[in-house]
């Protein structure tokens, strides 16, 4: 949603309401509470509010607003990806305006590092709904701004990994399609592997890159190398997000290696962090079924179906949303 230059004074109600919403967001970090006054707004209301914000030249609030709109996009993307894209475009536009306002090179450099994280999160918002085409342009921009960021390389690898999953050689209608899917999947998994290896070269302790490299090697059939990388990733994993991702993917690898006990413990660690994660429930229930415990599989499924909220697991899912990046940005907004 581009905002035209040459900004006229805006009606104070829209500008004011938007400023208040940003302030609530900064104060509470609660996007659902902050967005309440704006929930019936039309795109032109947002246009006018953003024009007013840009006219204020309040750089700190513009950056906070960019994070606010990114958080809105994260919440919206499962319901409407076009609406999510609109909010990401608002944020992206605001960050470009902020950069233009900086004259000093050091400030621009600091801002570019910030923008790179913002853009990698923006791309990952679309990865979280398995839309690598929409994600890729943001990741390319992030990469241009921060070519030596392990974080950005990792999300870049995730774009390729998610794209690869769209070429399923076991889901085909013609033999030529199966061959094409096989070929395209191998190409993309190779690119993902190279991106994760680059991230690890830049930061050998980067847990998510180690885990995702392990996963890509696993689905490429390189089980020994996969286990090596996964073990390192699990050892480096800190905090709920990293430990959840480690539990999920290590579980998958161990299950394929027929270590059902190890896989069960790994999935259960992930489930302890996000009890209503659909992916982990399915993974664990499938493991139980294959291990001859169909009653346990049914109980897991019934408990999941009876749980009333999908919100917690949505942010975690398969780890494709850059949650650490989003959490870092939220912290920046508060500061």
């Amino acid at each position, binding site marked *: 949603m581009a905002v035209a230059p040459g900004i006229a004074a805006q009606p104070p109600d829209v500008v004011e309401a938007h400023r208040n919403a940003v302030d609530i967001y900064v104060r509470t970090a609660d996007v659902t509470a902050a967005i309440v006054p704006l929930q019936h707004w039309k795109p032109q209301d947002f246009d006018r509010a953003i024009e007013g914000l840009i006219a204020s030249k309040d750089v700190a609030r513009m950056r906070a607003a960019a994070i606010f709109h990114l958080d809105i996009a994260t919440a919206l993307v499962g319901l409407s990806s076009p609406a999510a894209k609109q909010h990401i475009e608002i944020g992206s536009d605001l960050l470009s305006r902020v950069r233009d306002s900086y004259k000093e090179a050091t400030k621009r450099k600091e801002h570019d590092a910030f923008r790179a994280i913002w853009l990698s999160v923006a791309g990952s918002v679309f990865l979280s709904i398995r839309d690598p085409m929409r994600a890729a342009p943001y990741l390319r921009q992030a990469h241009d701004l921060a070519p030596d960021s392990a974080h950005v390389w990792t999300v870049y690898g995730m774009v390729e990994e998610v794209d690869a999953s769209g070429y399923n050689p076991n889901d085909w209608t013609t033999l030529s399609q199966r061959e094409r899917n096989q070929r395209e999947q191998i190409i993309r998994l190779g690119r993902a592997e190279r991106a994760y290896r680059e991230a690890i070269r830049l930061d050998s302790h980067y847990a998510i890159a180690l885990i995702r490299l392990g996963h890509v090697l696993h689905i490429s059939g390189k089980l020994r190398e996969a286990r090596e990388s996964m073990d390192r990733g699990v050892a480096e994993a800190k905090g709920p997000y990293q430990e959840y991702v480690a539990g999920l993917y290590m579980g998958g690898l161990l299950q394929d290696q027929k270590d059902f006990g190890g896989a069960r413990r790994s999935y259960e660690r992930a489930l302890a962090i996000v009890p209503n994660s659909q*992916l982990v429930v399915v993974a664990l229930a499938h493991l139980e079924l*294959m291990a001859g415990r169909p009653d346990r599989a049914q109980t897991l499924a019934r408990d*999941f179906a009876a749980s009333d909220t999908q919100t917690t697991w949505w942010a975690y899912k398969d780890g494709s949303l850059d949650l650490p990046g989003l959490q870092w940005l939220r912290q920046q907004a508060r500061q």
Partner: protein
Amino acid sequence: MMRIIAASAVVLIASVTVAAQRPTFRSGVAVVRIDVSVMNGLSPVAGLTRDQFVVLDNGVPQTIDSATLENVPLTLTLLLDTSESMRGDRIAHLIEAAKTLIKALHPQDEASLATFSEPFLLRLPMTRERSPLIDALDRLTPAGSTSLNDAVFLGLQLKPATVGDSTSVLLVFSDGHDTASWLRNDQLIDATKRSSLLLHVIELLPSIDTATGSPRPSEFLASLAKAGGGRHWAAQKASDLNDLFGKALNELRARYLLTYSPSGVDRDGWHDVKVTLRNARGDITARPGYFVQPQ
């Protein structure tokens, strides 16, 4: 030519209760029930006797104890794809087709409604009431990507705790390829074979692409239905859905229940079951086998 499409078998594991009711059980597996549909085009084939069925269990001919044309209630789970690609008239036609099916159920039939895009949602548990199901269907809106495999797996696990005198069916509708599941296709097929639910699949093909021509039905969905003992129908356009949902229900009403006590085969593991007709013509749908967990 007679064609075996799939099979539907329920294994009754021996228990004190079963033993008391059925003295014929041996070595753990008491009786195998095979749910078989026999169709001649769109019409059910009635009047067949047990002598007209041939059952091979792991290649060994079995003595059929009974063959009855079932008239038991259905326990039907509708599992509908509500992903983003269902926008527009596709979802409207789907809702109408599902409503028509619900209205055509017999009073003693039960139905539940679950949907999936990326998340799986049990919208309504099993009920004999029709209006809550109709209301829930009216509220469906499409959004998000497609976790078909995970949703079907969860649907299979949610089978009613006690089936009793009813036939449990999972009727899956999808219009697209899986984009977000944890389970691979081979894992889901394996899990489906281990389930006792009858699984039918209705697929809505993508719109015709002028560059690539007419889309073809998914091989995977056909294999999935086969593994679940059901059929796979593909609709070229959304307005065909009403007809296909009707065909699915018609098929569910035309089932024979064959029972036999397995003999001459090992108890544990996978049992490949083949059902054919002798001195009769018809299109057979039955589960391809059953699995007995080693003790």
